[in-house]
């Protein structure tokens, strides 16, 4: 025989023990002339789908297997053996049964053991050995370990024991990696196989593509083998110089068949056996079947019958009168669902949503194209009426769709795990699981890990890593060149070559698997036969398949996404019910009118911080220009604020037409009805579908199919069903023009329309999705308009997301809401609304105190429940607070409101002093007689009277401990300096003449660097000033000097030019802020530094001069702000619209 098949190959899915992607393995095998190749990752089949697709593309036969970690009899329970861990065996699936057994064995190894330490055993493998070849394993196999140590009788006994347990499928794996002693081991294993009469099979334990890099040798990293060693070091968390035990040869690569046969020149039967096994394997993944869950159906019903019944009942609930139009649409949708066999899926999703919303009381919202379905609406899955808002079912689902429709349900973020638990328990763990999400090496993490492995000094790694934003590793060299804020960091590109080269090599490779934030798989009970499962960090059953894998495998999915806004809304409703006596049961935000004047007034004023989808600086600017006044406008607004429309400048023509500055124009008069809602601008996917159908006369199903293939590179090859492609060279375009012509359009019109369709299709947005999103957007704005304190308390409790909490607090202040500081006698673990001086105020939460644990918060609340704390000593005695947390509480002012009659109140300094004394005293046992008298623990004598904090100290303490300047706006403390500089306030900016020079100052709250059409990089910064936000734009020419200050300082002073937007006249008169006005920066300074210099006696001019010199001297970074408060105080992003 000739040739060879590699039956033992690791890929990057062996997570840190493989340096070749599964796809690359397939292509390399084909390139090196192999007919088949196996993928055998450690305890995983995570790479299987990618491998299968690549094998199909490369024309090589895939063989699926895994290297399983097993407890060995020599070391039961997986105890360490010969200095290594438990043993390894290589499993190869021969057929479908074998693959199912492989999946189940892998799942069992993971689920029955501690997370991250999968372990199987000979006994377990023996029970599921059907359809499997079991190879004795690499050098870490039980038999090889004994043989290498010279314990030949033991090795031979092990081999016989395994052979007996497994049966005919058992093989002795032989290999020679040319390391010291490898040849001897090879001979010994061959001898054992011969003596025990077990076939031997040759392998090479492949971990990477090639031994030595063909290019760049000596010029950077050495080779694939080096990358493999690097991964080992990262895995072991030690520098490479400490990995002596791992030092191997560079022979673990995909050797060619002749090389492999050379290695076994004296044992050709072992090489032949690899071919025989490969021949016997006959299984590939099934990408063509959908797998639906089983669910209990009441007697006498079929899933289709039940679904139809529920839909008709639902329609009568949703609509006052079920018109013929509604009835027809329902029948049409049900027809498609039945035809595609999806009835059970819809029933299941409806069941889940009903239970989660009605029984568990968790807010839900449907998102995505599913909102376009009347079935989803009448079943209660979605709350947007697709008839009223003219949403298209075909965008969601139609008979021509070649991808799985999926329903996305948003739930309250902090209760998402409850929902997952419920689904798992209610529908069976055997048919439900969550997809995994692959965490890959990204720039910052890669730099840290590779730097550590290379033994770079920790501080040096830190500088390099911190300098990088979250870009992919392959973008590092470009980032180093391009980003001005890195130029000051003193990084010498040359020295870091090797670091970057290695980061580049592992770029995008998986680091570990995490739970997908939404993808719940609802599949059939044999799910475990098709995909292995492991435990996620949170303890959920997680598939070794990501979203794309699951889709390829025909696994039906329900996306359950945690959305903070839903939690915020729920919190706000809870607070309304709690504190407003006029609402006994709270308000039902689901039934509020959708045309509330106050809500739209708030939206038009763009004071929408905290509102869903419309709070970003860009969105607020758009709102001010757009001036929405009905729900449909919100749907358009959400669709317009996307990278596509913004980039292609669809926004301006739309607004010009909306406000009547430009006449409305239609691509063709016959399309007026379709495009009227958006003034002739194509905004929605649904419009593209309707235009295609109207022009060509095809069905909506076909039109959606055409729309989805418009962007394809091979669009020319796409035929459209039912319609002949009349001009072969024209492909889709030819079909479109031809069909349009036979539908009565002139050829010229048809060609123009085709161009329009193609250009708009890529920017359009799914209207159903936008409409679904507009609902929580509207509800949040309604709450902010009517119950701002309750609403913002909800936003603050559930992490505002886009902005730091202190900005939400500043916003609340602008709404006239009193801010009540953290107080051990009043604060809860969440933000509460409290009546103060006759109006609702927001009481800051205890959880904001740095370092406080849930247990500590709990102990405060429990003790306070008995009676309020009367003194520091009382608090100390009755709670279990650690010293740093108690000190933080004092520091932030949480004890300030306590006072004891007849005793002078103590300053924070005195309390801190006393706290030190308390922690050196033994604590009285709980339950001991507690004295309320304070004579025994009054202030100690050494303590004179220490002064209270100054306002600056107080605010600094608040920012340090909670990140929130509760007593006053931080900028209040700089009012003298900003007055001296002549800074314009946020309120004053509107009065400033266009293009005049101004100074502004504020706290940086957000910076965005979106992609801009011209290719120029622009930084948008939002500064928060006492009177509101100020938007600053930093163009490229200023960035060289200013970028470092912009990115690294917190309090900014900007000299610039006030620019008013063309549409500034549209800004609503009640706008207190400056939407439509931006300050184009000329210079940016660090305000805190300036203040310090002023304090030190420098003149204003001298202080500014100092900063200018610093910025000009390249490589001399400006100091970070003097105030470095705890936590995340500003937001920065690449400019995505966020969720």
């Amino acid at each position, binding site marked *: 025989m000739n040739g060879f098949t590699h039956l033992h190959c690791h890929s990057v899915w062996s997570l840190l023990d493989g340096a070749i992607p599964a796809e690359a393995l397939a292509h390399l095998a084909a390139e090196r002339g192999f007919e088949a190749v196996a993928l055998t990752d450690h305890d995983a089949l995570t790479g299987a789908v990618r491998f299968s697709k690549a094998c199909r593309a490369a024309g090589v036969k895939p063989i699926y297997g895994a290297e399983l970690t097993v407890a060995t009899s020599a070391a039961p329970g997986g105890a360490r053996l010969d200095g290594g861990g438990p043993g390894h065996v290589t499993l190869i699936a021969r057929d479908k049964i074998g693959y199912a057994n492989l999946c189940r064995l892998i799942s069992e190894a993971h689920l029955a053991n501690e997370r991250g330490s999968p372990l199987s055993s000979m006994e377990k493998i023996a029970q599921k050995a059907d359809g499997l070849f079991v190879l004795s394993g690499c050098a870490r196999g039980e038999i090889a370990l004994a043989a290498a140590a010279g314990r030949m009788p033991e090795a031979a006994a092990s081999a016989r024991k395994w052979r007996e347990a497994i049966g005919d499928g058992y093989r002795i794996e032989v290999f020679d990696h*040319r390391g010291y002693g490898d040849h001897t081991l090879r001979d010994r294993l061959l001898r054992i196989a011969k003596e025990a009469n077990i076939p031997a099979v040759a392998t090479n334990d492949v971990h990477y593509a090639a031994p030595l890099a063909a290019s760049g040798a000596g010029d950077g990293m*050495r080779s694939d*083998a080096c990358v493999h060693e690097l991964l080992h070091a990262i895995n072991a968390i030690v520098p490479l110089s400490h990995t002596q035990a791992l030092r191997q*040869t*560079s022979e673990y690569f995909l050797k060619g068949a002749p090389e492999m046969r050379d290695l076994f020149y004296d044992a050709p039967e072992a090489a032949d056996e690899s071919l025989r096994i490969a021949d016997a394997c006959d299984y590939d993944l099934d990408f063509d079947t959908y797998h639906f869950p089983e669910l209990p159906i009441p007697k006498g019903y079929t899933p289709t019958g039940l679904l139809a019944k529920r839909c008709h009942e639902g329609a009568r609930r949703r609509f006052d009168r079920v018109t013929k139009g509604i009835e027809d649409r329902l029948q049409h949708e049900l027809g498609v669902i039945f035809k595609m066999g999806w009835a059970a899926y819809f029933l299941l999703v409806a069941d889940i949503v009903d239970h989660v919303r009605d029984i568990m009381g968790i807010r839900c919202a449907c998102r995505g194209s599913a909102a376009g379905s009347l079935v989803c609406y009448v079943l209660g899955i979605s709350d947007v009426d697709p008839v009223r808002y003219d949403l298209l079912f075909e965008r969601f689902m139609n008979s021509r769709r070649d991808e799985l429709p999926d329903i996305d349900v948003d739930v309250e973020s902090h209760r998402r795990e409850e929902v997952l638990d419920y689904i798992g328990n209610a529908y069976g763990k055997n048919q439900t699981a969550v997809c995994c999400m692959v965490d890959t090496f990204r720039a910052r993490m890669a730099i840290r890990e590779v730097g550590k492995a290379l*033994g770079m000094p920790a501080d040096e790694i830190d500088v390099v890593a911190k300098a990088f934003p979250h870009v992919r590793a392959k973008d590092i060299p470009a980032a180093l060149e391009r980003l001005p804020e890195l130029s000051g960091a003193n990084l010498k590109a040359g020295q870091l070559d090797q670091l970057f080269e290695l980061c580049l090599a592992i770029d995008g490779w998986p680091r570990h698997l995490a739970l997908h934030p939404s993808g719940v798989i609802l599949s059939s009970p044999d799910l475990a036969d098709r995909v292995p499962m492991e435990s996620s960090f949170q303890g959920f059953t997680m598939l070794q398949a990501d979203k794309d894998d699951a889709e390829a495998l025909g696994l039906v999915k329900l996306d359950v996404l945690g959305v903070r806004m839903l939690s915020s809304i729920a919190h706000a409703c809870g607070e309304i019910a709690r504190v407003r006596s006029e609402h006994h049961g709270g308000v039902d935000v689901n039934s509020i009118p959708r045309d509330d004047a106050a809500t739209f007034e708030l939206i038009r004023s763009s004071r929408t911080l905290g509102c869903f989808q419309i709070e970003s600086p860009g969105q607020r600017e758009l709102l001010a220009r757009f001036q929405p006044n009905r729900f449909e406008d919100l749907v358009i607004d959400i669709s317009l604020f996307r990278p596509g429309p913004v980039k292609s400048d669809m926004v301006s023509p739309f607004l010009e037409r909306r406000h009547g500055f430009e006449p409305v124009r239609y691509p063709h008069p016959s399309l007026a009805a379709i495009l009227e809602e958006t003034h002739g601008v194509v905004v929605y996917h649904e419009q593209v579908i309707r235009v295609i159908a109207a022009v060509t006369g095809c069905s909506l199903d076909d039109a959606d199919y055409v729309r989805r293939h418009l962007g394809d590179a091979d669009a020319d090859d796409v035929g459209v069903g039912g319609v002949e492609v009349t001009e072969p060279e024209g492909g889709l375009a030819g079909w479109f023009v031809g069909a349009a012509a036979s539908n009565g359009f002139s050829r010229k019109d048809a060609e123009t329309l085709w161009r329009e369709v193609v250009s708009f299709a890529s920017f359009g947005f799914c209207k159903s999705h936008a409409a679904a999103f507009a609902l929580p957007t509207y509800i949040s704005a309604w709450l902010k308009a009517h119950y701002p304190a309750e609403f913002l308390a909800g936003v603050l409790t559930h992490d505002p997301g886009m902005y730091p909490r202190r900005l939400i607090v500043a916003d609340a202040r602008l709404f006239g809401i009193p801010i009540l500081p953290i107080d051990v006698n009043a604060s809860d673990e969440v933000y509460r609304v409290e009546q103060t001086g006759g109006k609702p105020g927001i009481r800051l939460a205890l959880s904001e105190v740095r370092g406080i644990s849930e247990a500590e918060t709990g102990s405060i609340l429990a003790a306070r429940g008995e009676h309020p704390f009367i003194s520091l000593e009382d608090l100390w005695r009755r709670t279990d607070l650690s010293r740093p947390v108690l000190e933080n509480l004092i520091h932030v002012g949480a004890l300030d409101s306590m006072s004891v009659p007849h005793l002078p109140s103590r300053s924070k300094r005195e309390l801190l002093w006393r706290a030190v004394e308390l922690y050196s005293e033994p604590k009285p046992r709980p339950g001991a007689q507690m004295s309320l008298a304070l004579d025994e623990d009054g202030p100690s004598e050494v303590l004179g009277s220490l002064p209270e904090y100054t306002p600056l100290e107080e605010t600094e303490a608040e920012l340090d401990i909670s990140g929130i300047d509760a007593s006053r706006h931080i900028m209040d403390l700089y009012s003298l300096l900003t007055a001296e500089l002549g800074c314009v306030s946020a309120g004053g900016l509107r009065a400033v003449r266009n293009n005049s020079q101004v100074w502004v100052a504020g706290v940086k709250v957000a910076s965005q660097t979106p992609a801009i059409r011209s290719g120029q990089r622009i930084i948008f910064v939002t500064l928060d000033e006492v009177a509101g936000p100020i938007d600053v734009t930093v163009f490229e020419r200023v960035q060289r000097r200013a970028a470092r200050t912009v990115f690294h300082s917190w309090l900014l002073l900007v000299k610039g030019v006030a620019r008013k937007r063309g549409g500034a006249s549209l800004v609503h008169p009640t706008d207190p802020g400056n939407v439509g006005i931006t300050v184009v920066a000329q210079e940016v300074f660090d305000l805190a530094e300036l203040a310090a210099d002023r304090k030190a006696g420098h003149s204003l001019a001298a202080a500014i001069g100092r900063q200018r010199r610093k910025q000009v001297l390249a490589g001399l970074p400006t100091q970070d702000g003097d105030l470095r408060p705890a936590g995340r105080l500003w937001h920065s992003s690449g400019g995505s619209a966020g969720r």
Partner: protein
Amino acid sequence: MTKRYDEVIVVTSDPLEEAAPVAFTWRDRRYDIDQCLMSWREAGEWWNRTRGRLGRTAEEKNGMREREYWRVLARPAGMLATGDLDSDGCMRSCGAVYDLYRDRTTGGWRLARLWD
């Protein structure tokens, strides 16, 4: 008892068996190889390039270490082998065991160790 060296040697290889040495010259003296006992490969520190640039040898300079070792039974040229085989199947010789290695990146040979 072994002695460690790291000295340049000149090796004559068997043209039939790729790279397998048949004789070498060390300190101006030629040694004939009677038997290759074993061969293995080693890969070494490649990551410390700062040191590499200041290194003496080629492999230190280019930051790579890829060695192919040969453990051989050899005797100074001119001294006769006895031709007897011992119980392990090794040829009895008046020579000694030498570890030689070839730098796979440059092709140069060095003597690493002498077992006597």
